């Protein structure tokens, strides 16, 4: 199971709509930071290549296609990961952080042996696939992703 971490700084308070009363006073010029989220409804299908098992959890990982500036610009900045129970149709709501990068890449791999690791040593060969969503940003995305690359991390497939 992908467990890439992402350092996020900021307050950890409970959502507090009662503080809206302060908005007129502050004009929110006094806000600590403004977090801009673009909501995306992901729909589609994740399929394994013909002849592969039809069952087994699928790990889906979402990335910015590019992030950073200058020499630090790089592809595949991790956003989040979720799981679907079996290859097939899915839908998922993504809160896309607009300041983290640009574009959207969807990567998925099928955890046939349920060990949480893509192609762990001595275990089954597992398949992965990747699609880049274009055009983006759009609020509704429809994808068709085929997992046909054995033991391939996302970096093996993107940039192509």
């Amino acid at each position, binding site marked *: 199971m992908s467990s890439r971490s992402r350092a996020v*700084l*900021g*307050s*950890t*308070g*409970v*959502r*507090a*709509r009662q*503080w*809206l009363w*302060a*908005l007129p006073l*502050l004009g*929110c010029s*006094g*806000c*600590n*930071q*403004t*977090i*801009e*989220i*673009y*909501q995306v*409804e992901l729909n589609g299908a994740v399929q394994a290549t013909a002849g592969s098992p039809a069952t087994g959890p699928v790990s889906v990982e979402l990335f910015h296609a590019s992030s950073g500036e200058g020499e630090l610009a790089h592809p595949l900045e991790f956003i989040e990961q979720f799981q679907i129970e079996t290859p097939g149709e899915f839908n998922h709501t993504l*809160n896309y952080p607009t300041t983290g990068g640009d574009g959207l890449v969807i990567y998925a791999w099928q955890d046939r042996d349920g060990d949480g690791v893509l192609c762990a040593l001595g275990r089954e060969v597992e398949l992965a696939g990747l699609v880049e969503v274009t055009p983006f940003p759009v*609020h*509704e995305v429809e994808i068709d992703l085929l997992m046909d690359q054995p033991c391939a991390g996302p970096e093996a497939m993107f940039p192509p």
Partner: protein
Amino acid sequence: MHRCTGRLLVFLAGAGFVLHPTVRAAEGASLPEHPAFDMHGGGSKPGSWAGGMQAGFPWQAVHLQYGLEDGWTPFVEVSSALLQRNEPSIGLALRWVDRPRVRVTGEVLLGWQVQTGVLAHSGPSMALRVRAAAWVGRRIMPYTAWTTRHTLLIDRTALETASGTETSLTAGPRWDALGVVGVAFVLSPRVGLELGVEYPRTDGSTVTLPGVHLGLQFGGRP
């Protein structure tokens, strides 16, 4: 009870204790009314004013206060650590203890904390401070001051959906504290000098380095 509400109630209770008339100084002989003593012991007699500037590592500060009736002393203050963490405040002080050789004052401050750089944050800030000073000779006064500061970091989230944008606010607390120990010297009837050592405690910082400063105090009656 939500953690922020609880802390706010505790703070208001502390402020009320600090400023309650029953803990005001008793009448009678008291520390000499010198700007240095007023700055570090706290409070000013009615009609007197005092000001101070300090420079050091990491803190610099400017403070101005004016004495009103019944022991109240409003003041304004700006402090800055390396010009990266800046804390402008207005405050109100009240002498609790005013004896021939000892003065203890409580202060309440309201203001803002703005920090720049990679750990930037900004938010309204409230602080409670206790000052204590003792007169050990004609011109020397050791002092100490302890401040607890509570800042609210308000984040705004704008969620853009297909049907529009929703805005929400979340708030998180931040706590800092600062202890100062030093000694003040009378240079002339209106000017004093002081040297102090600071012991900070900051939210999220596991280790803090002590600081040191040199300060100048001045004041008098208009």
